[in-house]
């Protein structure tokens, strides 16, 4: 258990020390949101309608952009083999990287949430539920992106392949999260929307379990 947290902590420290990767991703997504707002705008009601979609698509992009970060440094520095050589099972590598990826996505997601609230007039009154959706949605994205990133770690064309593999699989996450966020924005009672959160929860549970089971079988070496 402990090494899961240490692995995630180490990656997070490295990432925050490096800064460039995370910052450029956030800026890219900010520009993307700006352009989307211009495309949908400027009427506030149109923007408010497009807000959940823009936010979750931006987060999906963040997921595929940052997926390479989880294993990129390991391959560059040749430390992936050291990780693989550690005794015991290999599931913990997946969980550690998943935790790292989740932390990154939640960080980026919070920034994007602020931007969407500003540019798209997304109401933030029910911040608690929004955070819950962000956490579950980010976990869904991270579960799959971490798995594929590990699988394709040493491949040259992985930047193109990752989104191609990632996006069709996360369709249920996008649908559920967008509908939930939209419902919140329209002021529907949360009890009516809980089914969407349950769908996210089921998706997360299934994919985290399956990916953790398959990961040791698929990781090379």
């Amino acid at each position, binding site marked *: 258990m402990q090494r899961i947290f240490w692995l995630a902590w180490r990656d997070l420290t490295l990432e925050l020390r490096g800064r460039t990767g995370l910052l450029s991703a956030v800026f890219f997504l900010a520009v993307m949101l700006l352009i989307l707002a211009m495309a949908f705008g400027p009427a506030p009601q149109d923007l408010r309608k497009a807000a959940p979609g823009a936010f979750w698509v931006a987060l999906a992009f963040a997921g595929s952009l940052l997926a390479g970060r989880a294993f990129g440094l390991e391959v560059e520095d040749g430390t992936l083999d050291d990780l693989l050589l550690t005794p015991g099972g290999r599931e913990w590598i997946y969980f550690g990287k998943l935790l790292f990826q989740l932390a990154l996505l939640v960080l980026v997601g919070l920034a994007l949430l602020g931007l969407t609230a500003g540019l798209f007039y997304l109401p933030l009154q029910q911040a608690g539920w929004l955070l819950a959706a962000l956490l579950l949605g980010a976990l869904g994205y991270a579960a*799959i992106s971490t*798995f*594929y990133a590990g*699988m*394709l770690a040493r*491949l040259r*064309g992985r930047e193109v*392949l990752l989104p*191609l*593999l990632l*996006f*069709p*699989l996360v*369709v*249920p996450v996008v*649908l*559920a999260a967008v*509908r939930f966020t939209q419902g919140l924005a329209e002021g529907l009672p949360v009890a009516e929307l809980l*089914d*969407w959160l349950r*769908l996210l929860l*089921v*998706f997360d549970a*299934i*994919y985290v379990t*399956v*990916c953790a089971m*398959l990961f040791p*079988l*698929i990781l*090379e070496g």
Partner: protein
Amino acid sequence: MQLTRSNPKGRLDSLTWAILGLGVLGAVVGFFMAMSSPPDQNQGFVARIFHMHVPTAWMAYMASFGALFYSVAYLVRRQAHFDRVAAAAVEVGLIFMALALLTGMLWARPTWGVYWDWEPRLTTTAILFAIYVGYMVVRGAIEDPELRAKAAAGVAILGAINVPISYMSVKWWRSLHQTQSIDLTTGKIMVDSAILIPMLVNLAAFTLLYIGMVRLRGIIAAREAAQEEA
């Protein structure tokens, strides 16, 4: 469907020929039976496209199960021929999936008035199609055979699990915000024996064709692998 280990060199065996031949024969017979089946009460002659659509859609989902089964088998047993059969199942399945989507669209235009509708079955099939295109791209991108097999198995397994989840999510997604209502129940054909029998003949023929093509593709893949080794 399975390439036995007694056939490692990829000999084109008589069983494959027999299955393919029966499949082709059945498809021809099925085509004539479909063309002579009576027109549907509501849809008229347009409904005949179902004789093509239903078997291809059925094959598309068979391919998904086949790919899942052989991918799991590969990861557990690590024998190259499981990977080859999984790849063949996806490759041939992709063609049938494209046919199913295409025939579905051709049917939808005169019946619903649109080529595309965000109907759960349609959307799920489109998502699955995208996943299997990704599967083929991944196979093309990786040169090391063992890594390729492992990565492809991962994609196939995650993709097959996705089918029920995306089906449910699309169903709910539509039900909450229904903008246009196209009653799908009118799309059901009346199951009359005059329509059912040609349908079953077509189903059987396409199943045979599918199995035969997967076997053939597997044999070609085995020959390619043997050549690479040599």
